């Protein structure tokens, strides 16, 4: 029996999961049209590989990963590409992303599948296989899974995250109940790839059916995995908190779990990995909970690219529904429109109304009661961070470890003054990133300018030197005794240039923004995403004919 540990704080929001677990997972009917964003994951968007009018088969690669931090996108079913255009997607910024629109032909014709025997593959080969099959984390962050298999030090413990601590969401619960054997098989692939010694499958104890199913599947497989029931406490499903519960280890701030010999995968991801290896199927669909203000809440297996509006129709949204949330009520986001498409990260859609989620009262001033600090799983001082964020004192906010905030929302849940605390932290984080980026751009511009000055100086100097040289040569010729000190002149010149470059470098280093240099890959990904969006905006502005502000440099 594994000894369990506790993390600081946490809350007990009403689970609201039973509504959607009364019925088994139902396959969502094939939609007429799919809208497939080329960025459904953390990292770079995939590069479209198809043309408008092209016919594609189910499982055919339509978007290739770009660079190391990206994921492949596949056609979720057979049909014809009808458009490749910017479309609204499920993102809080409501900025459009490049999407491939697929007119579904209903024939479900498969492209060639390539099952592999994972035992015959090297680590790198398995990573390449997962990358080619578009496998990303299905727990919410959609981090490319192949990247999580790369690690510097041996992984002692593999942790499977079946905590599913967010209220309303039950997709992992239902998946574990119905496909435990596939999950266990996927876990074995992951264990093999990571060469992990111990495997712990953590499930919150409010899911007894899932725990029983997983225990049964582990027993049948004969594998030495341990299914651990953990106390229900939000946010136990956050990777760092789950690792703490199961191992007692704290992932150091700014580091990755692999740095302490632990790796963590969502149970849904394990199932997708099993299908990628054993069945050769890319990640084309996922289980999604449709719940909230609907007549028939339940879980569906839906193709990536299915519009949320169609999914909600299956469960019959009640008439007073006026908005939709993707994800849970603690960390989810309000959809900019109901017709944005399901992506790989979409674990849940909640039909919302004022009756279900009453609007919060107007915030009062903070009374420093520290209820937020008492529930903060990152052990931050949210009341101080709020104070710094609202006064734009970003340096202090960083000093008070703003970037360790996991945005779980426990602080705002308990705040007696109803202050939207997480909103302030998101604002502060994005401001800090934007400023860092501006600073970096300014630094680059200054560097270029300085180098330009340096070159002009050097050319001037060289010209003068050449003239002096010529004069000396003339003089020498006249004296008929040539002794050119050219080499030494060049040396001092070079030294001067080197010194100037050194100075410029030192200045650049001194002007580097602090606190952003030891970011985790997730944070870097987020920054990259923001930068990409900014660049996109610039491009859009330029395209619109606004030539007063040309895009900076590329």
């Amino acid at each position, binding site marked *: 029996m594994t000894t369990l540990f506790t*993390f*600081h704080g946490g809350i007990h*929001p009403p689970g609201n999961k039973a509504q959607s677990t009364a019925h088994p997972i139902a396959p969502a009917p094939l939609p007429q049209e799919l809208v497939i964003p080329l960025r459904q994951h953390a990292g770079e968007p995939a590069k479209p590989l198809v043309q408008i009018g092209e016919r594609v088969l189910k499982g055919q690669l339509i978007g290739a990963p770009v660079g190391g931090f990206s994921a492949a996108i596949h056609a979720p079913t057979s049909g014809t590409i009808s458009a490749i255009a910017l479309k609204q997607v499920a993102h*809080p910024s409501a900025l459009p992303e490049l999407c491939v629109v697929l007119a579904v032909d209903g024939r479900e014709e498969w492209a060639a599948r390539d099952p592999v025997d994972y035992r015959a593959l090297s680590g790198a080969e398995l990573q390449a296989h997962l990358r080619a099959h578009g496998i990303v984390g299905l727990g919410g962050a959609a981090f490319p899974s192949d990247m999580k298999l790369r690690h510097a030090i041996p992984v002692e413990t593999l942790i499977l995250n079946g905590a599913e601590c967010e*209220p309303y969401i039950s997709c992992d619960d239902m998946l574990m109940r119905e496909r435990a054997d596939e999950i266990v098989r996927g876990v074995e692939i992951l264990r093999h790839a990571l060469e992990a010694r111990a495997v712990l499958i953590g499930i919150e104890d409010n899911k007894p059916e899932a725990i029983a199913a997983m225990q049964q599947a582990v027993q049948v497989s004969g594998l030495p995995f341990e299914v651990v029931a953990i106390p229900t406490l939000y946010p136990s499903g956050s990777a*760092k908190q789950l690792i*703490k519960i199961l191992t007692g280890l*704290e*992932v*150091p*701030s*700014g*580091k990755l779990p692999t740095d302490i010999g632990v790796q963590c995968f969502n149970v849904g991801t394990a199932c997708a990995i099993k299908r990628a290896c054993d069945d050769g199927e890319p990640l084309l669909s996922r289980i999604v909970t449709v719940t909230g203000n609907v007549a028939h809440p339940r879980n569906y297996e839906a193709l990536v690219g299915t519009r949320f509006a169609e999914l909600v129709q299956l469960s019959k949204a009640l008439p007073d529904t006026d908005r939709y*949330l993707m*994800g849970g*009520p*603690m*960390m*989810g*986001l*309000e959809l900019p429109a109901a017709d944005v498409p399901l992506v790989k990260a979409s674990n849940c859609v909640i039909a*919302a109304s004022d009756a279900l*989620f009453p609007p*919060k*009262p*107007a915030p*009062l*001033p*903070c*009374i*420093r*009661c*520290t*209820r937020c*600090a008492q529930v903060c*799983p*990152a*052990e*931050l*001082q949210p*009341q*101080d961070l709020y104070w710094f964020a609202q006064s734009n004192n970003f340096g202090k906010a960083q000093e*008070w*470890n703003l970037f*360790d905030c996991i*945005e779980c*929302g426990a602080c*705002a*849940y*308990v*705040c*007696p*003054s*109803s202050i*939207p605390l*997480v*909103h302030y932290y*998101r604002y502060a984080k994005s401001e800090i990133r934007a400023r860092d980026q501006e600073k970096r751009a300014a630094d680059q511009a200054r560097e270029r300018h300085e180098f330009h000055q340096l070159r002009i100086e050097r050319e001037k100097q060289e010209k003068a030197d050449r003239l002096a040289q010529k004069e000396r040569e003339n003089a020498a010729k006249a004296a008929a005794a040539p002794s050119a000190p050219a080499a030494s002149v060049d040396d001092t010149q070079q030294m001067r240039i080197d010194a100037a470059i050194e100075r410029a470098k030192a200045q650049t280093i001194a002007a580097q923004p602090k606190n952003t240099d030891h970011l985790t890959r997730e944070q870097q990904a987020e920054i990259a995403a923001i930068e990409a969006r900014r660049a996109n905006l610039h491009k859009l502005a330029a395209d619109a004919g606004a030539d007063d502000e040309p895009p900076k440099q590329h």
Partner: protein
Amino acid sequence: MLSSPFIARPLAVNQIMLRVLLALLPGIALYVWFFGPAILVSITVASLTALATEAAMLKLRHRPLKPFLSDNSALLTAWLLALSVPPLAPWWLVVVGTAFAIAVAKQLYGGLGNNPFNPAMIGYAVLIISFPHEMTHWLSPQALGAVHLPFAEQMVYFFRGVLPSGLTLDAVTMSTPLDTLKTQLHLGHSVGEIRELPIYGRLAGQGTEMIALGFAAGGLYLLFTRIISWHLPLVFLATLFGMAGIFHLVDPAHYVAPLFHWFSGAAMIGAFFILTDPISSPTTAKGKILFAAGAGILTYLIRVFGGFPDGVAFATILMNMCVPIIDAYTQPAVFGQKEGRK
């Protein structure tokens, strides 16, 4: 469109304040039992003054009235101040104190959440400095008073400043048990002799010791319902006990026993209701311990060696000043940063 979380289940500010008000009721009930209903009149006058001042200041500051008048914080300030002013004092005393507390100590600093000092204690400090005479004539317990002033006559004095003919204020009032102790010690009496005086009971003053018990009971309710954390009240009481204990052990004839300090003056109401004001106290656990220990030491020193009848108010105000620096230096390690932290 605000971002997540979309659900919340807080104990709202007005509910927290209401529970603190409720927790004062046992103490107030015992107050009425031992000293008559006059205190209810001063609480009412203080409450009305507080709400009126708060409304006027909010109006002047162009702030919405409803959310702030209904947050119950002004009422709490009013009740705490009324409980620290003698009930048989002219009506304007409690009005001046409450108005100053709300207008200057709270609203001029920015209102709810922004006052660096406990407003009630600032109000008390202003009164004790400005009107020491009025502030030191306390009603005698009903069972004790050689001359008992009926409630109606008390009200005549409260509102019109007139006592029945032939009576002086000194005849119907007394100084507090703490004050009496100090005066008698100055006169050369020993603690043992002084404690024989009729105004003293088992633990401290007759009646007042029971009121302190009432406040302690209310405080325990706040502690067990997690409205307040244990750090401030327990550390404060422990420090006060420790200070008094050391002095008492060394010289019991001159220094009264620690329990006397616990159950006299504002020690209990201070421990559970005044120091625990979250706005003017530290936020970190370590900080709370430092703050409460400092307040305990200062309270004892002011009581025993200072010139004022009690030390809780000034100790609170002095420690309030230190809160920003205490908070800055007691930041706990965050998740994942516990190793290698100085």
